[in-house]
């Protein structure tokens, strides 16, 4: 096996050792032979591949010419054998300080065989663009899954996706000055908003009226702006404008914080799936540092991830009931959920934001007597949920509102790379817990569970998928408690290698969470990209809404379990809005130096 460290030759744009795209330092042939499909891709795009390497276990990177980017992405996405392959997201990086180029890198979750983590792998397709012309042919023109990410890199890094069908602003606010790109490394913090904000809403189509759902709406828990174009009560078309709760987290992570501090920031991306983000981030860093974490730590992480899934599914079903006016269901779902919160509070020290992770393991051990408590709670939840479902699914009015509403066909789900329960309700067989190599950070491969898949694709199917999953999670928790190994809970990491990249991922209760980390110097993070599942699910919501009633809109939107704050993590901190401390890069450095100088 070739170790990650052997596969160096990073960040030399024109790898001088590479003749015909072969890197002399790494044995390309042996890398390509590791997984099915890699070789075919290499043969198909031979002239355009500049470099290929393995980043870490199950993660492969090809540096390709930018001209063939759409073809390369679609080659994977439409692979006839690997049916569930999808474009996960992409990441844009300002690598000018390193090699004078911008980098844009879509990555795909390649599924050779569903639920076989040792056969599937990630493929990163990196293109370098010159600093004075950061343009690349748009993938979004052919694949809707890339719609948002290309708008995002256009906003934040000033890239130019040529041929993008909808090049409006996605992330930056309307009053943000032009030509200021927050994620560029030479970004100046002193710009203030322009005086006249420009809105770029889509025109209302002929013969329809506009119903603005949001930015603040009782049926949407967080700020999100769905502009429904309706005829009577029927929704004809939808425009979405979001990113109102955008906090500059990625930029903050790249500035002052060390890799262990970023972990706590990662946990605070979302109030619901925080631990999933924390584990994903920790996994990414552990992968790039190439350390194994102790078994016991893996088990404790998995236990908490599943407990989080349990209470979040209950939370979601409560909200769904609330949105169709079934408040009793709402209250009872949350009542059943409360013991899990209490349990987690005792296991970790907090109801949410567990703060349990540290890169290399976990911070608190699971004391033996708590095992009984976990099992007790699991039993309680199982009984309570069964009773609840008995009543809720026999409530005629509730079923009437959920059945046959918001149907998302399989093909649309795949084209938008919809993830998680939303995708599984539409018949997609994906689950990042088993699809990809989570075995380095979690223990899913050592327990037995099923992944429920429904074909209907309506709201009811999404309810049922989640409820089935909840029972599976309870079963996983019981197995974990039973099999819990002894030993350490933490491996020290020490210093991180510089300029390494890796991906961490988990299956949150909404879909696959992805954290891409590229290290910088001195244990800092050079680029940190977070992609929450809602980022892929939300663009598909307009497709679900079309043709249904305005009354169905809240439940359809909620049926993907949207989390806006996860999705919209990256906003740049505004100079004018006082509250948050805003510092220039130099001041940042000064401060960190000042605090460093204690010893």
């Amino acid at each position, binding site marked *: 096996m070739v170790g990650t460290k052997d596969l160096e030759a990073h960040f030399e744009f024109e790898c001088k050792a590479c003749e015909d795209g072969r890197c002399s330092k790494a044995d390309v042939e042996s890398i390509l032979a590791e997984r099915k499909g890699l070789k075919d891709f290499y043969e198909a795009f031979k002239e355009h591949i500049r470099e290929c390497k393995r980043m870490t276990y199950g993660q492969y990177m090809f540096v390709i010419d930018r001209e063939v980017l759409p073809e390369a992405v679609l080659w994977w996405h439409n692979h006839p054998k690997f049916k569930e392959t999808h474009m996960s997201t992409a990441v844009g990086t300002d690598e000018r300080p390193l090699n004078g180029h911008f980098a844009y890198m879509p990555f795909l979750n390649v599924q050779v065989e569903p639920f076989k983590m040792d056969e599937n792998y990630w493929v990163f397709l990196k293109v370098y663009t010159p600093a004075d012309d950061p343009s690349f042919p748009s993938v979004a023109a052919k694949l809707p899954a890339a719609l948002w990410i290309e708008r995002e890199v256009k906003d934040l890094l000033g890239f130019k996706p040529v041929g993008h069908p909808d090049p409006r602003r996605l992330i930056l606010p309307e009053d943000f000055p032009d030509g200021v790109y927050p994620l560029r490394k030479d970004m100046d913090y002193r710009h203030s908003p322009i005086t006249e904000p420009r809105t770029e809403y889509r025109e209302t189509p002929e013969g329809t009226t506009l119903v603005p759902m949001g930015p603040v709406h009782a049926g949407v828990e967080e700020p999100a702006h769905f502009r429904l174009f309706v005829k009577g009560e029927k929704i004809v078309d939808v425009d979405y404008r979001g990113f109102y709760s955008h906090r500059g987290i990625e930029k903050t992570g790249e500035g002052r914080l060390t890799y262990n501090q970023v972990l706590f920031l990662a946990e605070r991306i979302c109030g619901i799936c925080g631990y999933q983000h924390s584990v994903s981030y920790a996994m990414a860093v552990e992968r790039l540092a190439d350390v194994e974490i102790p078994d016991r730590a893996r088990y404790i992480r998995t236990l908490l991830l599943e407990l989080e899934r349990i209470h979040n599914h209950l939370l979601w079903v409560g909200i769904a009931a609330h949105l169709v006016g079934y408040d009793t269901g709402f209250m009872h779902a949350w009542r059943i959920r409360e013991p899990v919160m209490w349990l987690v509070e005792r296991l970790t020290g907090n109801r949410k934001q567990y703060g349990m992770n540290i890169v290399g393991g976990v911070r608190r051990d699971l004391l033996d007597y708590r095992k009984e408590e976990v099992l007790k709670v699991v039993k309680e939840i199982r009984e309570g949920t069964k009773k609840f479902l008995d009543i809720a699914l026999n*409530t005629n009015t509730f079923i009437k509102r959920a059945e046959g509403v918001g149907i998302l066909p399989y093909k649309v789900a795949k084209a938008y790379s919809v993830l998680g329960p939303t995708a599984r309700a539409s018949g997609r067989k994906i689950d990042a817990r088993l699809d990809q190599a989570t075995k380095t950070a979690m223990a899913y491969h050592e327990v037995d569970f099923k992944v429920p898949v429904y074909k209907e694709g309506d709201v009811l199917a999404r309810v049922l998928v989640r409820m089935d999953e909840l029972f599976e999670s309870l079963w996983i928790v019981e197995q974990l408690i039973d099999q819990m190994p002894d030993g350490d809970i933490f491996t020290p990491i020490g210093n991180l290698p510089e300029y390494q990249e890796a991906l961490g991922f988990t299956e949150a209760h909404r879909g696959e969470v992805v954290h891409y980390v590229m290290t910088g110097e001195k244990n800092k993070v050079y680029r940190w990209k977070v992609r929450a599942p809602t980022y892929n699910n939300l663009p598909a919501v307009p497709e679900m809404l079309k043709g249904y009633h305005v*009354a169905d809109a809240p439940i359809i939107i909620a049926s993907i379990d949207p989390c806006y704050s996860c999705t919209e993590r990256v906003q740049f901190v505004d100079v004018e809005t006082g509250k948050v401390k805003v510092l220039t890069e130099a001041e940042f450095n000064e401060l960190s130096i000042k605090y460093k100088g204690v010893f």
Partner: protein
Amino acid sequence: MALDIVKLGFSLAGILIMLLLPPYLDGIARRVKARLQYRRGPPLMQTWYDLQKLFALPSVRPTKSALFTWAPYIALASAISAALLLPYGNVVPVDFGFNLVVFFYVILMVSVALMFAGLSVQNAFSHLGSAREMQIVLTVEPLIAVLYGVLAYNAGSLNIADIIANLHATPSVILTYILLAYALYVESGFVPFDIAEAEQEVIGGPLTEYSGRLLGVFYYAIHIKRFTLLWFFVSLLTLPWLGPIGTPGRAALALALQFILTVSFYPVIAALEATNARLRIDQVVKMNTRAFFAGIIILAMAFMGW
């Protein structure tokens, strides 16, 4: 004159009940719902406190339209005048010839006021809510008219007091009662039929733009309307079968019975509300249309003397 004093007394009692009881009924409903949801629930006075707070607050007026300002008061006046047309004991405070027809229209006025209030502002949600209210009214009112027709035909009068005095039990009347319970429930706008004011879908519908005192008045009107419809139903359910009510003592007994039944029906309604999700407007329209045809059949039965 002695009779007049008794009449005055009953009318006053009726007015007091009609003005003071409705928010308490809502308080009971909230308590019942809370218990069904394993919560503690607010005190019985809570709806009064809410109204008190709203009455004390100024309203924001998003439009210059006078309709916007007057609609809540029209709704309140309509609801109160509808309540005055009902019997309290054996006394109807405002008693005249065709008062069943007037009752029908006056109750309708509350919905109409709500509808126009929603249409008087430039707000998509208000308009949607008004449109929904209109659809509900247009489908449920014919049903109610047909049912009133059955009752009037059966008793041979269009006066509420006369109907109560002369109603006799036939299969058609019993069926009418069942259907009337449904129709009045729909008109009251309880869950699952609170579609026009749905909080999560159209953020309050016609009430979206209302605030402060005007909103309070609207709420008060809606509570009184709900009470009136229930009181009407309870009166039909009890008074015709109590036999002739001559003495003030028996009348007081009848009033007490009405009162107790009204108060005890409210928890049942609350339980129904708590165990249902909100329906969609097209589903309600379909249900109402079916009920309307059933009403026509009952009317035919009544004409045949069943």
